[in-house]
């Protein structure tokens, strides 16, 4: 026990001697949170649109006005011809070029169907399809008004049937902010970076400098070394979790609805698996450069993609969905979103928690054994 404490002490004094590193580890989470919280939004609320108004009547201007007042569009240009429209789309200055045909108001008055054309820069498929949704809505509301007038003219004030309207209620995230979706998941991401990458770097550094061999000839047992090396990172990990949860509440007004204690327990289980992975990386790499590249390319990135952190798992091909079951971050993100946003606890999340715990133990055990073997 004393030996373990000594190693921990040594690691901490190494931290202290290197204040740059310590500062970075503490500041990094906050900066990342700020970036992700403010910038990571997929909400589409400012679509740059261009109008090619060939009609130029009061009716067409009224129609354009509807886009402006919807709040989703900013009208940047009025084009005079198709060439101008094409040029602005090619330069990616606007996302949509909307064409109002010459006989727009005339045909509305005559009750003839008007063809409306909108040309989208489809490169960003997601944004384009959401923008198309907004436009469809504006058009259908406008056309409803016209149809009402038309029916009134025909003496059909009352419709033959009632109208169905939908009331869409969103739970857990009523304003549909991507932020609510992203920010809690950042805790998982940060924990992975701190515990996984930094652990593997710390261990490989000793290898690279050659101090690991000096440790091997001392009476320190491998498991003592492992525990001593890992504990400081567990502590760092917890500090950053608490830091991020506090900042989340202060900066973005996202409180933890569920039990914080349960969340911390789950974080601990998750840390077990990331530490294990970090240790594993250190056993297969000889230099810090290798360790970092393997950790980033081989573990972190796939973990981020396949965990449901930013990209919905439901949309992935079946095989990748199966692979995602092997990724600890997946369970941790489900837990943290559940606890923070939905306020659910162990009774609803016992499956994820158990899997996370078992995975953590298994990965850590496997890596420790491998690490010991390498030492011998």
């Amino acid at each position, binding site marked *: 026990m004393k030996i373990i404490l000594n190693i921990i002490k040594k690691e901490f004094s190494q931290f202290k001697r290197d204040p740059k590193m310590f500062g970075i580890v503490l500041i990094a989470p906050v900066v990342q949170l700020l970036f992700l919280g403010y910038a990571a939004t997929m909400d589409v609320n400012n679509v740059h649109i261009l109008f090619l108004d060939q009609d130029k009547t009061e009716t067409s201007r009224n129609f354009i006005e509807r886009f402006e007042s919807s709040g989703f569009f900013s009208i940047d240009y009025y084009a005079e011809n198709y060439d101008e429209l094409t040029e602005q789309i090619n330069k990616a200055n606007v996302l949509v070029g909307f064409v109002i045909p010459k006989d727009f108001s005339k045909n509305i008055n005559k009750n003839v169907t008007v063809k409306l054309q909108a040309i989208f820069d489809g490169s960003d498929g997601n944004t384009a399809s959401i923008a198309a949704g907004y436009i469809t809505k504006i058009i259908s509301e406008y056309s409803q008004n016209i149809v009402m007038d038309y029916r009134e003219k025909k003496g059909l004030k009352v419709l033959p049937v009632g109208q169905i*309207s939908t009331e869409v209620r969103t739970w857990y995230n009523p304003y549909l902010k991507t932020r609510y979706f992203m920010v809690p998941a950042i805790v998982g991401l940060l924990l992975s970076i701190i515990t996984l990458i930094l652990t593997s770097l710390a261990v490989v550094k000793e290898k690279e400098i050659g101090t690991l061999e000096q440790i091997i000839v001392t009476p320190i047992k491998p498991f003592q070394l492992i525990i001593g090396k890992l504990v400081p990172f567990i502590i760092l990990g917890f500090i950053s979790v608490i830091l991020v949860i506090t900042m989340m509440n202060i900066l973005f007004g996202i409180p933890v609805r569920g039990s914080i204690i349960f969340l911390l327990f789950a974080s601990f289980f998750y840390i077990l698996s990331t530490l294990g992975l970090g240790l594993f990386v250190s056993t297969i790499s000889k230099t810090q450069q290798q360790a970092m590249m393997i950790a980033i390319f081989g573990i972190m990135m796939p973990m981020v993609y396949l965990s449901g952190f930013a990209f919905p798992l439901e949309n992935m091909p079946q095989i990748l969905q199966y692979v995602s079951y092997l990724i600890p971050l997946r369970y941790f993100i489900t837990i943290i979103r559940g606890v923070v946003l939905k306020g659910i606890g162990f009774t609803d999340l016992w499956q994820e928690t158990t899997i996370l715990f078992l995975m953590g133990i298994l990965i850590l055990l496997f890596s420790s054994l491998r690490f010991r073997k390498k030492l011998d």
Partner: protein
Amino acid sequence: MSINRILAIAKKEFKHLFRDFRMLSILLLFPVFLLIVFGYAVNFDVRNIKLAVYDQNNTELSREFYNSLISSDYFQISHFIKSDSEVKVVLDEKIAQCILIVPKDFSQKFYSKENVKVQFLTDGVDGNTATIIQNYVNAATASFNSQKTNHILEQKGVKSYIPFDFQPIFWFNKDLLTTRFLIPGLIAMILVIVAVVSVSLSLVREKERGTIEQINVSPIKILELLLGKTFPYIVVALSNAIFILIVGYLLFDVEVKGNLFLLAFTTIIFLFTSTSIGIFISTISDSQQIAFTISTMVSLLPSVILSGFIFPIESMPTLIQILTNITPAKFFIKILRAIILRGVGIEAIWDQIIYLLLFAGILLMFASKIYLKKENI
């Protein structure tokens, strides 16, 4: 400056790289692996959303209504809810992402010319998917309404009238596939990792081991050292870019529409900018751990989050929009998308190129100042 000395250093660095076979294969293979995982995993296209139906009305009309919703591939009915208490469970346990509640008096009200409300409960945790669901549901209901109304009116002899026929046309990416949009961004990201991160690490390693002092006392000039050291990484990064383009074409149908030479030219310029970031980081950090953390913070993360790679810049708050200019990846991604997806020429992207060059120049100037100062001490 002597070409011979640069070549000698480059040769030495190449030897380092080739001797470290593991590192080389990581650098060459992982980006492709990443692309494949990424290409298949990242998909914002909303399809087959699990819908649970709570039909309290249970009439022909209510069935017709929800069947009209699932006629597209947006929804698939995963569950029928029987009681009120089930509603919460279904969303909490993610049995469905969306619940449709048809009220008891649905058909009765509809036929007695009253307006009825159906409720949609969606799991809003993923705001993006929820917005798309909302848009779709509104549009589908509106079309169900007008279909029904027109049908009955027509029976009464009133001609139906649809004021607008709206045709959205999607250029460059007809099927609105997300992969196509993301692959150019992925190239930028991988180049950032290889160029910024590995360059800074390889320079700092010499510092950590003390070999940099030996180089300092040799007649090698700083510029020669930098050029020689970064050259191998530029070669690796370029081959990465080529690999990604080939795999992207074979697996994901991403074709380069524009000029390949322009693409190569701009890629080299971006690599120049990224390596100058790597060099700058190496001057301010003393250990590989610090170099790694700084490069993740100032280059990797911003180029994922602030570059418009995934998250549209237009939707960010103004302050953050200004901040996005600190990441050269933003400009390179614009260039890549312009060349690969839209096939436009240099006239649409020259301003981005100039920016990249300026960025590199300023950073290199700072880096050499800091480096010279340290050397004099």
